């Protein structure tokens, strides 16, 4: 171990980043989209685009109207959940569970969207997972048990944290290269882009990775809590999560009793929170003598994810308990970390800042992955010049890079198209949309591994770009409110969705165009071509940007020099 600290950190950064980079790119991309989860869901239900954009109805009144609907349609249910209208979500969303015999497998709750003013069903929207699909995939992946998925994602997030910290150590010139971006300089440009997106959004990257681990910390590291509470899970959760326990009855009494009107209770709770809005109301055992009503405060009121709530007796309206107001410091610290990760507190401007930082994270991961391939390719420069072939590892990385960085946006755009093109009456429609997403992604990745060439990059980027850029055209043609209609009606979330898709599509198309701008020096770097032997510059077929000749490329950053030096030493 003669290597210096910085060299070993460079090694660590390279390999910890490469190993999990593809999963991280997916986690970053889907997580970034999840900042607009509600907006995406709304866009994906074009049947609701005609409803008024902003709710003029006070939450208290909307709750009262929703109860009339639930008493009619969901009598006998053990639990009603009423999502109250807000700036982001103008409708009332009610969900309820059906009564079921004990021991039966848990069913998904039924969900219906209501007009806040009348309490009547809105036009039945198509069945879709909407933005929730990306949100869940962000940490639950798909087609596998959620528990495994969370371990996998947690493992990758831990590597991300390692990569960030070792990257900071490796990057010796953080301040002198702070504003530096040198385009059209081959590998150096990739490094500059990687550094800029990493350093300039560093507070965000550190925060999001660390707090991401914190969200599932009791799953990853349960031992401290187990020891401290000696296995008493119930007490632990009651103390750690203010909303978990309560004085609300846990069992129905079996005697019918009328439910108290909800409106005054919501107003009472809002008065207690100095006017902060209520976000939802949960009624347990409605219509029973043991009914209880819990009113939750809107997440925008505080950074912490520990929502305050007030519990009332459901038959008398008597105030039972206020939760989440004097949360212990440790629980509140965790609550703030989780809150920062989810961003529920963020208003529109801050939400966009989070979104942009998330995009910077995607670019950081993508450029990091590409840089590994660009650097690795240099080692094969001589072999390639003689007509040899690149190694299996590089070929695999090239393919996976392509499948992740170009294939995922293509698949995400396809998901939006599938949402509009799959007939509404299709049985199990949400699964069909998701199958479309994974089919496109799977085909893209297989094609990428089979032929990881510049043409394939261009093809997938251009396809993804076209699909994204045409979303604003497709939207009004398939029943949605188009840009102009939405803008005149004040549906700014729909305008934002279409505009963002257009911009993303244009960015992808630009990169596809940029790849084709120069003639690919050697398209088939992966196959033996002895006829190409005389060509001097090393072929950079699979990398999106042609490399400068290694000899004309002395200016790697010192850290990369260190890495190169370390590699020569060790070999």
């Amino acid at each position, binding site marked *: 171990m003669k290597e210096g600290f910085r060299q070993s950190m460079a090694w660590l950064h390279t390999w910890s980043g490469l190993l999990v980079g593809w999963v991280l790119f997916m986690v970053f991309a889907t997580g970034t989209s999840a900042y607009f989860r509600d907006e995406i869901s709304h866009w994906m239900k074009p049947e609701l685009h005609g409803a008024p954009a902003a709710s003029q109805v006070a939450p208290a009144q909307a709750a009262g109207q929703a109860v009339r609907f639930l008493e009619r349609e969901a009598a006998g249910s053990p639990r009603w959940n009423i999502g109250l209208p807000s700036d982001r979500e103008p409708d009332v969303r009610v969900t309820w569970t059906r009564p079921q015999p004990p021991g039966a497998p848990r069913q998904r709750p039924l969900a219906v969207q209501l007009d806040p003013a009348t309490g009547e069903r809105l036009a039945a929207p198509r069945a879709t997972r909407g933005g929730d699909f990306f949100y869940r995939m962000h940490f639950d992946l798909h087609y596998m048990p959620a528990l495994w998925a969370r371990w996998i994602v947690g493992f990758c997030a831990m590597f991300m944290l390692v990569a960030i910290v070792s990257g900071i150590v490796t990057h010796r010139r953080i301040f002198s290269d702070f*504003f530096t*971006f040198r*385009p059209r300089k081959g590998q150096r440009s990739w490094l500059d882009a990687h550094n800029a997106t990493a350093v300039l959004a560093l507070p*965000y990257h550190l925060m999001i990775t660390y707090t991401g681990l914190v969200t599932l910390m009791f799953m990853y590291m349960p031992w401290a809590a187990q020891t401290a509470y000696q296995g008493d899970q119930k007490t632990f959760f009651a103390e750690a999560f203010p909303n978990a326990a309560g004085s609300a009855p846990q069992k129905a009494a079996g005697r019918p009793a009328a439910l108290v009107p909800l409106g005054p209770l919501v107003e009472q709770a809002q008065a207690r929170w100095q006017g902060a809005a209520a976000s939802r109301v949960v009624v347990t055992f409605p219509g029973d003598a043991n009914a209880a009503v819990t009113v939750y405060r809107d997440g925008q009121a505080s*950074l912490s994810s520990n929502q305050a709530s007030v519990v009332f007796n459901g038959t008398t309206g008597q105030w039972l308990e206020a939760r989440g107001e004097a949360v212990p410091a440790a629980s509140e610290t965790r609550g703030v970390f989780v809150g920062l990760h989810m961003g529920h507190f963020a208003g529109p401007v*801050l939400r966009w800042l989070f979104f*942009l*930082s998330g995009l*910077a994270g995607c670019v950081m991961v993508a450029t990091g992955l590409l840089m590994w391939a660009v650097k690795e390719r240099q080692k094969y420069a001589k072999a390639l010049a003689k007509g040899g072939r690149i190694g299996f590892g590089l070929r695999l990385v090239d393919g996976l890079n392509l499948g992740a960085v170009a294939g995922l946006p293509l698949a995400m755009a396809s998901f939006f198209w599938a949402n509009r093109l799959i007939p509404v009456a299709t049985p199990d429609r949400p699964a069909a949309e998701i199958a479309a997403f994974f089919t496109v992604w799977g085909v893209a990745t297989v094609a990428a591994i089979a032929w990881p060439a510049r043409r394939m990059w261009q093809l997938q980027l251009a396809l993804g770009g076209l699909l994204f850029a045409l979303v604003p055209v497709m939207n009004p043609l398939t029943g949605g409110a188009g840009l102009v209609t939405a803008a005149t009606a004040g549906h700014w979330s729909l305008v934002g969705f279409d505009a963002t898709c257009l911009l993303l599509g244009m960015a992808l198309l630009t990169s596809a165009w940029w790849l084709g701008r120069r003639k690919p020096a050697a398209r088939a770097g992966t196959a033996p071509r002895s006829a190409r032997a005389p060509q001097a510059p090393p072929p950079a077929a699979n990398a999106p940007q042609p490399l400068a000749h290694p000899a004309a490329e002395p200016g790697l950053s010192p850290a990369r020099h260190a890495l190169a030096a370390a590699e020569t030493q060790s070999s």
Partner: protein
Amino acid sequence: MSAIHLTLALASCVAAFSALGLAMDRHYEDSYGRGKSPSPGLRRTLRLAGTGGLLLSLWACLAAAGTAQGWVFWFGVMTLSALGVVLLLTYAPARVARVLQGGALLAMLCAGWAMAR
């Protein structure tokens, strides 16, 4: 976050990063020609102005969004403006000085307005 505070935070942050960038030899050269470098006095002024601009932007965020969210806001605003200044220094280095002046002027106007109210 009121529009005036947001404009103040962004304008002062962009101006501050432009000033900090111009205080560096590499970017000064890009803006004013090869071999030119800022005089020691100018460099000090630029750095002081840059620091002041960042602090002004922090003040705007804290005043408008409260202590807790203000810091989150400030980091977001810094990320956005720094990315903008990087693109500016790369693709339009000759305009940096004008952006710095414009940003500073806008920040002054907004600061005056925000404090007068």
